[in-house]
Every structure is written in C-alpha cells, then in structure tokens.
C-alpha cells in the first residue's frame, strides 16, 4: 500500500478522545508495551497517537509464578499478575523518559481497594507529564486487580466515582468482557464520571498440557488475547458504542490497519494494539502508515469521517 510517490494528498489522522488530542488513533494496549522504553529501539514513540503504560499500583507488585504465558491458536494466554514497579519508581525513573516525546502519556493503573485506586489517581493527577488516566477494573489474573470492581455495575460505579473525585485529568475506564452484559458496566462507569471507555481486556481462558495433565499457566487460568478474540471485541465495542455517549477506545486482536478500521467503523474513536506488539515491535507504525494509505486510496480526507459509519 505504498503509494506516496503517486499520491501526496494529506490525510488527517488526528482524533480527539476525552480531550486528549492524538496524532492518530493508534496506541498500545497496557501491559504489551512496558513503559515505552523497551520499544524505543524499534519504533519512533513520536509516531504514536499515545503511549499507554503497564498497569501501575501504589506499591510495586511481584506478579504471578511462571509459566505466565502460552500460545494458543491465533492468540496467547497470559497470567502475568500485574507485575509493576509501583507508582514511585514510575514517577522517578520511567515517566521522565516518556516526557521526552511529543506523544501523550496515558497511565494505566489499578488498586487492591477503592482507597488505593483513589490514592494512585490523586498522585497521577499532580503530574503534568500525564495526559490521561486509564483505570483497569478488569484484570482477570489477580484477585484484587480490578476484576472485583469490573464485573459488578454497582462496584464499578463506586470505584470510578471515588477516582473521579481525585482527578480532573481525562479518565478512561478499561472494561472486562467477562460479564453477561457489558453495557451495564459501561453505563455504570459513564454515569460515575468516566470520560471514555476502553475495551476489551482479555477473555478468561485456560489451556492444558495433555502429557503432564497440568494447566499450561501456573495461575491455571489466564487472559486470552490476539487475533482469535477480535470478532468478540468488535461485537462488544459495537454494543457499547450504542449504549453510551462517551468515546470508546477499541481493543482486541488488532494486528493490521484493516483490523483497526473495523473498530473505527463500529464507532471506536481510537484503538489500542496489544499482542501484535509482541509479534512485531514495529506493528503500530505499520498500522498507522497503512491507515493513511487506506484513507488515501478510498478518497477519505479525514479519518474521523470513517468513525461510526457502520452500515446496517
């Protein structure tokens, strides 16, 4: 799709999500991009719509035992267990690196309790280098990694509103697909003050080693990600877009521009790329280039003209 030499019409890729202006609608999904520096040798961080950090907690977190990852058909299971350096280390050693780039930094965070969520949010609110917060109420791999809050609409509303009181920064709430009706938690988060929603986090899954008869993850159950989950994610984003008035960021199995476009067409304002970063550290740069090429080829001057154009 390289047609630059023939056609140089400019395409606007800039979008806005909850007041954050993104150069383009592509950003990494939390937990697949470390703290950004891991990918800097392979990818120009300036080219991204935003950087989304690994999920942070008030104190450093060790994570689960190994094995923590295994491949399945078209995807992978992980049960990392939210291992992270903690908010203090992040502010001291990771954030300054990200601040060098002309790219908004969205910090993903979680807490063991509602108070911890609120405290982390308050700390992040004070940092000028942080463009927005993404609160994880959906990690399937730890008891208190948010899933307790994410699977119950009332609990979700309570924790989101506690965080809302502590920050005036754009607040994105990341939802789990492991519920009967995602629209309920989506509406609850919106009503409690979320500025945007991101979905989906991983789907819970399990794989067994038939020779040892043991689970292939030390945690037994993990989160499934990768291209295998994309149709489920597109469906859920489609449903949530219909159910709420705030912007939605689409996540789930995006490996190519065509995949990202599916999410945009059903109404996502932006997308996050996750597992594909592991497969190709340059995946997001390729997706951005190809999005532009697609627009040019289709005669679309502004990517915003694609968003929410699903024909039914």
């Amino acid at each position, binding site marked *: 799709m390289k047609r630059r030499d023939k056609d140089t019409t400019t395409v606007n890729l800039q979008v806005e999500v909850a007041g954050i202006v993104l150069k383009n609608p592509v950003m990494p999904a939390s937990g697949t991009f470390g703290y950004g520096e891991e990918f800097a040798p392979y990818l120009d961080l300036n080219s991204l719509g935003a950087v989304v950090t*690994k999920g942070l907690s008030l104190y450093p977190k060790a994570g689960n035992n190994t094995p*923590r990852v295994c491949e399945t058909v078209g995807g992978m299971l992980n049960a990392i267990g939210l291992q992270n350096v903690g908010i203090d280390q992040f502010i001291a050693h990771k954030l300054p690196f990200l601040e060098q780039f002309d790219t908004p930094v969205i910090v993903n965070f979680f807490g063991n309790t509602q108070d911890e969520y609120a405290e982390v949010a308050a700390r992040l609110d004070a940092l000028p280098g942080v463009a927005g917060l993404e609160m994880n109420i959906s990690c399937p791999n730890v008891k208190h990694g948010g899933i307790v809050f994410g699977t119950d609409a009332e609990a979700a509303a309570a924790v989101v509103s506690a965080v809302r009181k502590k920050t005036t920064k754009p607040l994105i709430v990341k939802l789990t697909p492991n519920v009967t009706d995602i629209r309920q938690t989506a509406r609850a988060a919106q009503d409690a003050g979320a500025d945007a929603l991101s979905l989906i986090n991983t789907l819970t899954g399990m794989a067994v080693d038939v020779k040892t008869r043991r689970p292939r993850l030390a945690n037994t159950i993990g989160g499934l990600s990768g291209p295998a989950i994309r149709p489920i994610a597109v469906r859920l984003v489609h449903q949530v877009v219909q159910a709420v008035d705030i912007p939605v960021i689409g996540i789930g199995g995006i490996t190519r521009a065509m995949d990202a476009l599916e999410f945009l067409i059903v109404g996502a304002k932006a997308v996050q790329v996750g597992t594909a970063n*592991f497969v190709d550290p340059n995946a997001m740069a390729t997706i951005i280039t190809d999005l532009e090429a697609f627009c040019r080829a289709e005669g679309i001057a502004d990517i915003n003209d694609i968003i929410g154009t699903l024909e039914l």
Partner: protein
Amino acid sequence: MKNHKTIVLSNQEIAPGYFRMRILAPDYTRLAKPGQFVMFRVQRALLPLLRRPFGIFRAGFMPADCDTMPPKEFIEIIYKVVGSGTEIMQGLHQGDPVELLGPLGTGFDTGATRGDNILVGGGIGLVPLYMLAESVAEPARTQLLIGGRSRDDVIAVTEFERLGVKTFVSTEDGSLGDAGLVTKVLEKRLESTPQATVFACGPMPMLRAVAEICRMRGVRLQVSLEELMACGVGACLGCVVKGDGHSDAQPNYLCTCKVGPVFYADDLAWEGMPAAAGGDCGETP
C-alpha cells in the same frame, strides 16, 4: 537490536529431528555476542502467532552469488522439531521470507574466560556455547562436555573440535561416549581442573545439578536459561525467573530476555526454579 525482514539461506537436518538453519543476518558478526539470542518469526502469517526464541549458534560470512557483490553475512541457529512453529521451520527452503529480531539479551561474561573453562551442553543446550568457545583466549584450556539422551542428541561436536576445544561426550543410553549423565563427567573434570570456570546450558534438571556441583566446590558458574516468552524485549514479563533473595515480600523477578538469558548462578534462586520450563516455546505437539 533490529527487526530484519530477511530470508533463509539454507536449512538442513543434521541429526534425526535436529535442523540447522542459516539465515541472512546483516551486522550480526559485529553485533552478536556469545550467548545472545534472536526472536525468530517463522513466516509472515498469524500462525504461529508468536516468535520463537533461538540461541545464536554462530555468525559468519559466506561468498555472494556473484563476484561483484559483497559477501553475505549470516547467522546459524539449531533447532529441534517439537511443535507447531518448528514443524513449519523444518519445511522452509532457501529464499523463504522470515524475520529476525535481535541480537537480544545479555550473553556470557566473556571476561571470565581467562584460564581453564568447562562448557557443559545438554542436548540442544549446546547451541549458545559455540560462540563462547570461539571467543576464549586459549581453546586448548577449554573443555566441552556434551550430554544427550542418545547419540542422535549429540550435535555439532566436530565443529567444536575444529576450534581446538577438548570435547567429552556422554549419553544416557551409552550409545556414544561415556554412559551416564553429563554431570558425572563434570565432577570428574573438575577434579583435574578445580579452578576452572563453568558455563552451562541445557534442560533445567541438568542446570540444577550443575549449579549444585559448582556451589559445593565454590566454582564460578554462568548458566544460559530458556523460558517461555512472548516479546523478547522485556515488555511482556512472561519470561521472568526468580533472582537471588526472591520472596513474596521482596520480589526479585528477572527477565530472562533482558537480564539473561545468561546469568551467574549465584544471582538466581534455584529452589523456586520451574522444573520443566522452556525448550519448546510452549508449542503444542
């Protein structure tokens, strides 16, 4: 550290189930250090999804197809067919497109190779030891102990011999060299060269035994580990091992892909080491 969209130069079965693949790899002779690895993308498709980590066997130059072209720079990897990824790999031919991310990780501390060295390789674990053997100052004072289940699992011995390294082969079934475990040979060799430094790579039970032997004798040991990993660049945190002093209260997880794959044995917590980790990249047969 770079992702190369490159091609296979050759791919040959060197022993039943073991293949050696030569891949076009610009800059690797300059960049690759002994003990480093690559994340190898088998094909430009989504099956298998993840790359596979492979230790670099060696890096070198070969003549170009015509005189006017500069020589081609390559690396070689050696792999055993164990699952979906390596099954596809064994069917690759010269010219097939693949991707190489690397060279990655922290390799052997080659500053420690002055004097007597004992290299211990279990099966496919021999692979990262070749570049180390190439790098030692005095090959004649370097011994290579190769262990395998049977003679079919003993690979590339002659190439080590060509470097002037003394080789000792042992197989569990006695079909080649001494009968028994490579760790028995190690104990014997350490009796004649007790001041040697040991470098080991192989299955976890072997590494555990080697670590115990070296600890008892106060011998310095570097081990190269294999762990399941998704990214190879320190982001997924899938490949962590417990470092020395690790506890739930004071976690000390180390990324095999970044801090390793080579560690000083003293820097690891051997009690918590998973018994059957690595080697097959989580592949389903």
